[in-house]
């Protein structure tokens, strides 16, 4: 296999995204519980499916989907775009607490940040596993 770490990362992220949607479909308390460690899960800030909210809030769901999309579609890490998306997310948050909170802006900034972070994080994880493998082989 040419890129096992990348494949593992895509599979784990896909499972994470699937779990977000499966939580309300399966009425799964353990999934909600695990996601409660990383997200506030406020009902007013979450999408709902068949009367139950998704496992994560709208922003976290958008970040996760953007991350999966970035892993699948973007190959080259670009720090400039990551910085821009961090700034956009920060500005959106500032706008939300001062002037106006928009669900669409939360979705778009989350998707952008997730997508731009994905190739950088993939590269970091690949490099880290490569280093661990090299260190293990030289022992």
């Amino acid at each position, binding site marked *: 296999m040419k890129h096992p770490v990348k494949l593992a990362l895509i599979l784990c992220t896909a499972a994470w995204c699937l779990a977000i949607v499966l939580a309300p479909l399966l009425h799964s308390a353990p999934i*909600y519980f695990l996601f409660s460690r990383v997200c506030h899960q406020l009902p007013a800030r979450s999408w709902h499916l068949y009367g139950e909210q998704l496992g994560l809030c709208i922003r976290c769901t958008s970040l996760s989907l953007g991350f999966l999309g970035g892993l699948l579609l973007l190959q080259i*890490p670009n*720090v400039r775009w990551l*910085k821009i998306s961090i700034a956009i997310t920060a500005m959106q948050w500032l706008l939300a607490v001062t002037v106006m909170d928009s669900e669409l802006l939360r979705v778009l900034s989350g998707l952008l940040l997730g997508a731009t972070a994905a190739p950088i994080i993939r590269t*970091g994880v690949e*490099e880290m596993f490569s*280093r661990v493998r090299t260190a293990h082989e030289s022992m």
Partner: protein
Amino acid sequence: MNQCKQCGATLPEDSRFCLQCGTENTPSSASTAPQGDLDFLRPAITGGLALGVLSSIPFINYLNACCCLWAQAGGALAAWLLNSQRPGMLKYSDGALGGVLSGLIGAVVATIISIPVQMLLITPEAVEQARTQLQQAQMPPEFVDMIMRFMQPGFDLSRTLISLLLNMIFLGLFAMIGGIIGAAVTARKRAE
């Protein structure tokens, strides 16, 4: 010192991609000059202490409900401290390793600090208030019971051990993400 063949930016040793323009660098263009080993321990302890303390103080720890923001900040702090040892030459994997270590240290710190915090702050009245709030969410009642099992007054060893395990998984994961992002951002800044 390596330079990007596309834009001329300074690159960390053996870096696959330019941190400025993203151009892929072939291994032959990477320098093989030996460099001093990074000291991971001190940045990891500093990052871990910061994220552990901030993750266990009531109200302040609420930022962890935004994709474990304190964990990401702790990982980024570790990467920033690592970058000061090797200015502009930090690899993403250095940030990842520093982040993971700070996340694991932070998990232990957060779990230890939260024991007295829980013993002091979790009263039967606080538990009832939390239950009422949780019941307003559109989630299964079993989830509320599960959360309430972790919100009981006093000390419980099994509850503490499960918290430690979950902290190690999530704080470690998100501190690693913060470490990689921190390495990317700080390395770029130095390269400029």
